[in-house]
């Protein structure tokens, strides 16, 4: 267990030192480190070792342990980390300060692994902080607007960690212990108001990291300004640390039974979380539809998809929990896939603006296939993994009697379709503009990563049994009733899911149609110039419709898309700045009045004792 932490942290610093010698060595070392991590985590499949890192750090031991839940998260972290390192070989080759970049990538990865492995709140907090400021340095890596994004991120994450510290210590004040196993289930024994206060403090910190709607404003800037490999890790995994924390609080500390039971306190808490999650699904999806920058679209979509996960987890039933966890895995795969795809496009065409790209399908076919599979996963087309997790979510929402949440989530899916297709259409379909005529294919290392992730999306979609069995064991260990899972889906009386039927039906229909298409008269292949333009020749520069793609819709819902939270936070920052300027004017600068301050203080002290007997 300690080997994992040792290799991750040690590896990061080793890579940095080796980088001083030669960049080849740095890449090799980075790959070895991340590869080793994948192997180590895979080896610890369902073993549950525990160990203590430091016997007593400020009066409490730092301990780590591994159980099914943390293994599930750890494997996702390590795999996406490995892929992002492989992806960033060619992405970072030309850039400046590359060895700093690799150090930070491995450090953030190590921080996340530490979070997942930690067995008590103190270690959890320490690794959480390391991850936060590591991410800060990486977000502000490309200069210019990234600085503002980094600043916004670090302010909100510092607020989050401060609130979490207060929460942890208020828990410690009552229970005298940080260790999860001792805290499990006992959080309610204190007065309900106090336990609600502690739980909500922790949940606020996790909500900031998970970009739940009122606290989401840092995410769109951070994702679109961070370098592509890191924004894939950022949106695929780093957001899910908030989810891991939420699971800890809701399922471990509060305990599933209490969380679901209609006690007045916890029902209100759960209702608030559900409402916030559904708003997180709805509003960002439609803001994403209106974005013109590829990465901003993906950033807003990450917020929306994180909303699905929270909705699933806070719903509390086994299906809901399974939906949330499975959607975490799916989102990690297809969102990382989309970010890598867009990163490859950005690497080749040096631009992210959707309106100036187009027709890259002919020049970068593999990237197109990857982004297509990623978008299908995002939307939830039947043969991809997104569909299975959404199916689970909607089934439990409908059958447990809350159709309105299901309605909002489904409308969120339709928002996903709109911006998913917009992403695909603007970048890959349509006319290939003049300046991208000779764009080369994505380099080999990028394509390797894209292929692996698209395979993951499709295989998980067709055989959802593998992860679901894992999640079922976790759910049982959390104290929820199990569901009967076969390799192809859920077999249960109230509506089963069987992906092999869907696969075989679609495959058969597809083959039949393909045969008819090919059997009938051969069709001539024509280029993009030979196109219908009412008899005129195709205009050379721009013959495609990308600007204001959903303009009719935008005119109708523009009023609801204003990001009021962002403006509100900027207003507060302005107030604090003004107040601190006013405070600074206290030091007027001439000695006379400074001396006056001292004597005033003295007289106030004496008078308060003489007149009012204060002390």
């Amino acid at each position: 267990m300690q080997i994992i932490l040792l290799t991750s942290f040690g590896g990061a610093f080793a890579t940095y030192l080796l980088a001083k010698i030669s960049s080849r060595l740095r890449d090799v070392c980075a790959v070895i480190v991340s590869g080793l991590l994948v192997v180590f985590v895979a080896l610890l499949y369902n073993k549950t070792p525990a160990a203590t890192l430091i016997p007593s750090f400020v009066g409490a031991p730092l301990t780590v342990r591994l159980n099914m839940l943390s293994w599930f998260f750890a494997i996702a972290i390590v795999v996406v980390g490995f892929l992002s390192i492989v992806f960033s070989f060619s992405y970072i080759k030309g850039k400046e300060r590359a060895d700093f970049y690799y150090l930070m990538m491995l450090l953030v990865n190590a921080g996340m692994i530490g979070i997942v492995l930690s067995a008590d709140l103190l270690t959890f907090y320490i690794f959480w902080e390391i991850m936060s400021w590591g991410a800060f340095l990486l977000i502000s890596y490309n200069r210019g607007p990234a600085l503002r994004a980094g600043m916004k991120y670090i302010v909100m994450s510092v607020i989050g960690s401060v609130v979490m510290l207060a929460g942890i210590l208020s828990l410690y004040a009552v229970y005298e212990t940080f260790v999860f196993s001792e805290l499990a289930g006992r959080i309610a024994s204190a007065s309900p108001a106090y336990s609600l206060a502690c739980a909500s403090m922790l949940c606020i910190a996790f909500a900031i990291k998970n970009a739940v709607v009122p606290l989401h404003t840092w995410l769109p800037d951070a994702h679109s300004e961070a370098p592509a490999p890191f924004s894939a890790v950022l949106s695929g995994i780093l957001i899910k640390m908030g989810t891991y924390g939420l699971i800890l609080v809701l399922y471990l500390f509060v305990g599933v039974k209490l969380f679901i039971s209609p006690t007045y306190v916890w029902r209100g808490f759960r209702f608030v979380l559900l409402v916030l999650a559904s708003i997180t699904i709805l509003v960002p999806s439609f803001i994403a539809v209106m974005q013109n920058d590829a990465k901003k679209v993906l950033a807003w979509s990450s917020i929306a998809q994180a909303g699905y996960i929270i909705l699933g987890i806070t719903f509390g039933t086994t299906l809901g929990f399974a939906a949330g966890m499975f959607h975490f895995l799916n989102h990690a795969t297809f969102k990382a896939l989309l970010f890598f795809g867009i990163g490859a496009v950005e690497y080749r065409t040096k631009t992210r603006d959707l309106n100036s790209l187009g027709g890259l399908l002919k020049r970068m076919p593999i990237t197109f296939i990857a982004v297509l599979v990623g978008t299908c996963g995002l939307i939830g087309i039947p043969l991809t993994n997104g569909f299975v997790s959404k199916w689970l979510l909607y089934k439990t929402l409908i059958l447990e009697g809350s159709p309105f949440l299901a309605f909002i989530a489904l409308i969120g899916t339709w928002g996903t379709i709109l911006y998913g297709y917009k992403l695909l259409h603007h970048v890959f379909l349509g006319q290939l503009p003049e300046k991208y005529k000779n764009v080369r294919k994505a380099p080999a290392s990028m394509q390797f990563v894209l292929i692996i992730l698209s395979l993951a999306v499709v295989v998980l979609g067709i055989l959802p049994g593998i992860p679901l069995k894992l999640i079922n064991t976790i759910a049982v260990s959390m104290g929820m009733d199990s569901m009967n899972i076969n390799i192809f889906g859920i077999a249960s009386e109230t509506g089963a899911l069987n992906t092999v039927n869907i696969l075989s039906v679609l495959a058969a229909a597809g083959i039949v149609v393909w045969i008819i298409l090919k059997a009938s008269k051969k069709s001539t292949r024509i280029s993009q110039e030979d196109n219908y333009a009412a008899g005129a020749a195709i205009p050379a520069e721009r013959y495609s419709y990308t600007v204001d793609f959903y303009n009719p819709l935008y005119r109708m819902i523009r009023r609801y898309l204003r990001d009021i939270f962002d403006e509100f936070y900027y207003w507060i920052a302005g107030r604090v700045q003004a107040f601190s300027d006013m405070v600074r004017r206290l030091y007027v600068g001439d000695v006379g009045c400074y001396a006056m301050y001292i004597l005033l203080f003295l007289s106030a002290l004496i008078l308060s004792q003489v007149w009012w007997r204060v002390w």
Partner: protein
Amino acid sequence: MDRNKIGKWLKQPAKMANKYSLNAVYFCTGCGIIEIPPVITARWDAERFGIIPVATPRQGNLFMITGYVSLKTLRAIIRTYEQMPDPKYTVGFGSCPINGGMYWDSYNTIKHLDRYIPVDGWIAGCMPRPEAVFIGVTHLWTLIEKDMANGYLRYREHYDQYRGNQEKLLGKLDWPPLYATGIAQKEIAA
């Protein structure tokens, strides 16, 4: 109208299908387009003959050149004709496409349309009435029946002559030639 003779359908489905489902490209060239709406709408319903106006040349196989063809319109006509899929038929309306009609001495209108694109049928009349259009259409059916409406094959076969005439008149055309010029297209589509 031998539309409901099952025997003929079975023997030569392609020819029968071509006859009874003509999609007309809704492309107005000259003064004749004002004649097309009455042909299509309620009084003289073209749909009973299986003729529907379609918006793009890709979907159509009947190309009605209604009225005189000016130099500018010829460029568009050639391009539209080349964009139509293969078994395609052209019908010239009125006298102007035949030999220039009353614009015989105008510097700006084409005199003989069939020197630039192949034309399968002509309908006389300085803008023929809808009944004349239907007579033309039935006549086209017989041409298709007798395999005489092979304008598209002639276009493929003598493409370099057609292309030569077009470029002699319009100067350099700004789209690539449809068929590779230089080698005469001997094989005729099966």
